[in-house]
C-alpha cells in the first residue's frame, strides 16, 4: 500500500517546482503550529475565565453553607453532598457489574463465542447512547416504572448505565494486558480459575481497574442532561436515597439559565466542579502512565 501512496506523492513531486513545495511546507508548518497555539489559547481562555470569576466567591463558607435565595447567595454544601451520593450509587452499581462483565469477556469466554460478541455489541451500543436519551430512559424506567420518583437513587442508577461501558472497557484492557504466563503458571500449579483471578490477575490489573473507576467517576460527575429528569432540582440537604438531590452540574445549569443574578455563584460552582474533575482525570491519567511505564520496565 505504501508503494502506491509513495508513487503518487512522488509523481506530484516531479512536476512541482521546488520553490512551491518549500512554500507549501513552510505554510503548513506555520498553520499547524498556529492551530496548536489557538487550541491552547482557547483552553487557557476558558479556564482563566472560570478561575478569575469564580475565585473571589470561593471560600470555606461557600463549600460548607446551604444555598440561599435560589442559590444567588450562600453556598453549595447540600449540592456537594447530593453529588457525592449520586456518584456513590452510580459507582456502587456499575463497578461490580463492569468488573464481572470484563472478567467474563476476558477469562471465561472465547473471543468468537456468540454470547461474548452479543455482550460486546451491547456495550458498544450503550457507549453510543446520548446522555439526554439516558435521561429519558431513567425517567421512564427508574422514576416512573420502578416508582423511585425524582431521587438520588434514580439519578445514580441512570448514571450507572451510562458509565458501565467505560468501566467494562478499561477493565477488559487491564485484564488483557495481564501476562499469559500468570494464567499458565496458575494452571500448572493446579490453581482454580477463581483463585488465579483473585490472587494474580485482578492484583496485576489493579492500577488499570482503578484508573477506569476514576474515569467513570469523572464522566458521571460531568453529566447534567441525564440527571435533570432523574435526580431532580431540589437543593435541600438530602435525607435519604429516595430524596431528590441536585448535582453540582445541574446547579451550574440552573443558576446560569433560570436564576437572574446567579452568575457569580455559578462561576464559583463551576470552578469547584472543574477542579474536582481535573484532579480525578489527572489522577487517572497519571495512574495509567505509571502502570504502562512499570510494564515497559518489566518487559
Amino acid at each position: 500500500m505504501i508503494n502506491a501512496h509513495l508513487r503518487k506523492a512522488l509523481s506530484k513531486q516531479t512536476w512541482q517546482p521546488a520553490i512551491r513545495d518549500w512554500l507549501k511546507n513552510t505554510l503548513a508548518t506555520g498553520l499547524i503550529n498556529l492551530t496548536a497555539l489557538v487550541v491552547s489559547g482557547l483552553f487557557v481562555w476558558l479556564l482563566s475565565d472560570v478561575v478569575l470569576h469564580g475565585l473571589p466567591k470561593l471560600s470555606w463558607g461557600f463549600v460548607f453553607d446551604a444555598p440561599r435565595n435560589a442559590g444567588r447567595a450562600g453556598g453549595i454544601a447540600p449540592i456537594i453532598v447530593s453529588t457525592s451520593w449520586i456518584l456513590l450509587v452510580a459507582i456502587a452499581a456499575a463497578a461490580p457489574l463492569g468488573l464481572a462483565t470484563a472478567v467474563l469477556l476476558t477469562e471465561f469466554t472465547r473471543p468468537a463465542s456468540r454470547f461474548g460478541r452479543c455482550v460486546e455489541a451491547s456495550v458498544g451500543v450503550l457507549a453510543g447512547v446520548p446522555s439526554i436519551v439516558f435521561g429519558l430512559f431513567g425517567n421512564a424506567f427508574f422514576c416512573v416504572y420502578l416508582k423511585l420518583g425524582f431521587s438520588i437513587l434514580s439519578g445514580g442508577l441512570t448514571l450507572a448505565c451510562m458509565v458501565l461501558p467505560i468501566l467494562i472497557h478499561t477493565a477488559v484492557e487491564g485484564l488483557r494486558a495481564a501476562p499469559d504466563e500468570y494464567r499458565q503458571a496458575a494452571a500448572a500449579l493446579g490453581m482454580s480459575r477463581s483463585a488465579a483471578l483473585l490472587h494474580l490477575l485482578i492484583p496485576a490489573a489493579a492500577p488499570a481497574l482503578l484508573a477506569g473507576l476514576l474515569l467513570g467517576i469523572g464522566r458521571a460527575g460531568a453529566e447534567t442532561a441525564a440527571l435533570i429528569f432523574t435526580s431532580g432540582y431540589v437543593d435541600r440537604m438530602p435525607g435519604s436515597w429516595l430524596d431528590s438531590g441536585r448535582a453540582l452540574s445541574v446547579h451550574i445549569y440552573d443558576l446560569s439559565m433560570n436564576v437572574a443574578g446567579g452568575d457569580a455563584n455559578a462561576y464559583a460552582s463551576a470552578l469547584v466542579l472543574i477542579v474536582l474533575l481535573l484532579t480525578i482525570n489527572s489522577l487517572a491519567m497519571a495512574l495509567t502512565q505509571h502502570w504502562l511505564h512499570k510494564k515497559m520496565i518489566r518487559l
Partner: protein
Amino acid sequence: MTLSPRNTLSLSRADRQLAAVLRLCALLAVVVVLLILLFLFGESWPILSHVPVWRFLSDDSWHPGQALYDMSPMLTATVLSSAGALLLAVPLGIASALFSSYYASPGLAAVYRRLIELLAGIPSVVYGFWGLTTLAPLLGQWHPPGVSLLSATLVLALMVLPTVALTAEAALLAVPQHYYRCAAALGLSRWSSLVGVVLPAARTGIIAGALLAAARAIGETMAVLMVAGNVVQMPHSLFDSVRTLTANIALEMAYAMGDHRAALFVSGLALMVLVLALVGLADAYKGQAAHD
C-alpha cells in the same frame, strides 16, 4: 486437544459457579440496552399509534398542545450545528494531531496531549456556561442577539475537537514509522510526506474519529441548550436563535404530559437511531482500519 476428561485446565466446581454468576452480570448489560429500546418505544407508542410518522416533519408548527408536531426546525438546527461544528473541528483536530505526533518536540507534544485530554474532561455544562457568559455576549456585540446557531456551532466545535484530535492521533501513531522515513528518504518535504503518505494510510481511523465526533455533537444537550437561544424556528442565517432536538427534550420534559411527552420520546428515539447509525459506521471504519 486434551485426552483426559479432567485436567488442570478444566473448570472446577467453584469456577463453574463463578462463571454462572459472571454470565448473569454480563447478561444485565445486554438487558439494559434492551430496556432502553423497550422503554423508548413503549413511551413513544401512544403517539406513534395514532399520528403517522411523516407528520413529525410536515406539520405546520411545533405546538404539541394543539396536536401539531413539526420537528423539522429542530432537526435542521441539530444537523446544521453539528455539521458546522465538524467543519471546524475536523481540520483543527487533524492539525492538532499532526502537531503532537510530527511537529512538536517530544516534551512539548506530551504537554499538548495532556492539555487535549483535560479539555476532553471538562463537563459540557461548563462549556455551555462559558459560551453563555463569555462567547455569546462577544458575538452579540458584533451581531445581536449573540445566542444563535453560530454560538452553538462554535461551542460544539470546541467540545468535539478533543475527540477528533485524540482519535486522529491514535490513527497517526498506528501508521508504521518507516512510511514517513521512506518518504523523507526519497526527498519529499515533511508536508508532502504527511499529505501524500501518512495521512492516506491513517485515513480510516481519522474518518472513524470524525464520525464519533459527529455522534457526540448530535447527542450533546447542555452546551447547545445554553448557547443556542432556544427559539423554535427554521434558521435563515447563522445569527438566528435555534432550538435543537436535544435542547427541546431538556426544556419540555419537565412539564410534558400525554401525547406531548410521547412526542419527546419520539425525538429521543430518532436521536438514538441517528447516533447509533453514526457509531456503527465508525465501528465499521475502525474494523477496516484494523484490517488494512
